[in-house]
């Protein structure tokens, strides 16, 4: 009490005794008030510390600096000897762990980065801490703790401790430990609440760190995926470039085939004919026969070159997909075929309304080739039947077919059927170059479909084709 106030009070009193009594009475009133002010002051400091802890959460997302700053602050505020963040090793069942961060009075040793195993802890205490329970021990030698636990604590000179769980979401991540080493200490409720709140905020920091870690992991993965797809893309682009180059080369090749290979043939044929016409009297019949053979061969080769070019053009031409009425196309071809030989007795059976998606020019080539074959390979029969139709496939798409009851072929040679220039019949029996089915196959492949045949000798043949891509098993 200040001297001026005391002097004033003294003047109110009758004697010294009365003054002493007044002083004592006043002091008894003031003391708890002072205590309350001190407490309030401490509370304000704690709140300030809490605010700083919250503010730190907003800044760096790494837990290490947050732990470090919080440990220093809490130790100062509570005037304790050690504040440490203890982390359980993942998958250790809360038996093993270490202090990952710490602030310790220089009079005592550091507990940091030393593996601590407490086999009596995991089973007994973990479950309580998990539920958020706090342990406040005023004196470890007088709290009924197990011997092994006391042994571990004494290793770090702990005399009194306040332990609050650090929860990362639902998971018990570790413990916030406040140690008093110098002497026993009775922890006040206000201190326990303060430490619990700090632990809550550290839990938020841990949660953030976990989110950040998984986010970084995801970013890493995405970056790697992007890198992979970039590499893949690059490879693809290169492949496309190469393909384009090859295609261009092929185009140039077939162009020069169409020009250059044909020119000498024309010379051979032309001058053979000129010989036959201009020098006929100097040649006997054998000589003339030879010249005719030369001419036939050159003409055959001319046709082969033409067919080869047609085949390559089928692969090179642009595709324009639209709806194509296959039934109508087939009907037209059948009428044309009948007109080429009106005497032949052929029954045409055409399923109506078969409309497919595809390039009209290319699909026309497919039908023309298959129907021409059917017409050709039934020519030895007095009466024949040629069908065009479609059957549903197991996958729901349609397989179109052209069926005849003509000469057929042995299925043993079926694999040669679609190879260019392969023939299953002698050309004096059935003329042809072996390009038709190769052309059909190329067109069907380009449309994403497939083509196959069923046949037997003298029992006719059926050619099937699809125009939609089927699911490819990888």
């Amino acid at each position: 009490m200040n001297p001026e106030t005391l002097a004033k009070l003294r003047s109110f009193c009758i004697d010294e005794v009365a003054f002493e009594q007044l002083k004592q009475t006043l002091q008894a009133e003031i003391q708890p008030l002072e205590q309350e002010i001190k407490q309030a002051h401490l509370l304000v400091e704690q709140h300030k510390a809490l605010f700083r802890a919250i503010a730190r959460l907003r800044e760096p997302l790494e837990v290490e600096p947050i732990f470090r700053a919080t440990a220093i602050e809490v130790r100062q505020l509570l005037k304790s000897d050690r504040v440490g963040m203890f982390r359980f090793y993942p998958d250790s069942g809360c038996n093993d762990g270490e202090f990952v961060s710490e602030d310790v009075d220089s009079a005592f040793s550091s507990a940091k980065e030393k593996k601590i195993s407490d086999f009596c802890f995991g089973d007994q205490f973990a479950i309580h801490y998990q539920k958020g329970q706090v342990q406040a021990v005023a004196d470890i030698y007088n709290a009924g703790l197990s011997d092994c636990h006391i042994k571990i604590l004494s290793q770090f000179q702990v005399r009194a401790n306040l332990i609050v769980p650090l929860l990362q979401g639902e998971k018990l991540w570790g413990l916030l430990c406040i140690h008093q080493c110098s002497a026993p200490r009775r922890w006040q409720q206000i201190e326990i609440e303060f430490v619990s709140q700090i632990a809550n905020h550290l839990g938020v920091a841990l949660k953030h760190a976990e989110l950040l870690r998984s986010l970084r992991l995801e970013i890493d993965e995405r970056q790697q995926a992007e890198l992979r797809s970039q590499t893949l893309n690059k490879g693809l682009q290169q492949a496309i470039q190469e393909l384009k180059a090859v295609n261009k080369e092929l185009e140039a090749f077939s162009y020069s085939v169409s020009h250059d290979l044909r020119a000498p043939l024309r010379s051979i044929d032309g001058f053979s004919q000129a010989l036959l016409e201009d020098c006929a009297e100097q040649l006997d019949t054998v000589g003339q026969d030879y010249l005719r053979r030369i001419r036939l061969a050159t003409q055959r080769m001319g046709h082969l070159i033409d067919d080869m070019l047609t085949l390559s053009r089928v692969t090179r031409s642009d595709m324009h997909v639209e709806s194509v009425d296959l039934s109508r196309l087939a009907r037209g071809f059948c009428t044309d075929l009948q007109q080429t030989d009106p005497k032949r007795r052929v029954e045409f059976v055409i399923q109506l309304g078969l409309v497919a998606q595809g390039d009209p020019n290319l699909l026309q080539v497919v039908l023309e080739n298959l129907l021409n074959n059917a017409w050709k390979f039934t020519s030895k029969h007095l009466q024949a039947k040629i069908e065009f139709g479609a059957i549903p496939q197991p996958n729901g798409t349609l397989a179109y077919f052209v069926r005849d009851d003509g000469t057929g072929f042995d299925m043993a040679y079926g694999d040669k059927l679609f190879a260019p220039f392969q023939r299953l019949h002698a050309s004096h029996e059935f003329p042809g170059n072996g390009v038709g089915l190769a052309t059909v196959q190329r067109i069907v492949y380009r449309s994403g479909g497939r083509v196959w045949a069923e046949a037997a000798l003298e029992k006719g043949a059926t050619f099937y084709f699809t125009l939609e891509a089927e699911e490819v098993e990888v």
Partner: protein
Amino acid sequence: MNAIANPKTILLVEDNPDDEALAIRALKRHHVSNQVIVAHDGVEALEYLFCTGMYAERDINFKPTVVLLDLKLPRVDGLEVLRRLREDDRTKLLPIVVLTTSSEEQDMLNSYSLGCNSYIRKPVDFVQFSEAIRQLGMYWLLMNEPPPL
């Protein structure tokens, strides 16, 4: 069909000597024309028609009735010859028949786009080739009315 009295000429632009010989033989055999001038590449064809270079002395008013033009030629190719002839007022109406081995759609498209009057593909079969040449000569030299130049 009096070939001798016919003053009409054909300019054959052809680099292959065999094709040249066969074409001339076919024309002669069918008495289509005894006046065939041969240019062996694009440059020679242009020099003849515009009276430059080795044909600088030639009378430009004397024009062939029809030009038979191969596409694949050394130096200046057939499409380029066609383009230059169509660009020039003196030759833009000149009947030009492309006579080539190519049946490439692109070649046909380009030739017609540049303004050829006809496109004939040389068949390998000489009888057909000979027939094509005969009809060609008959049509362009005898039946067709040339553009008034």
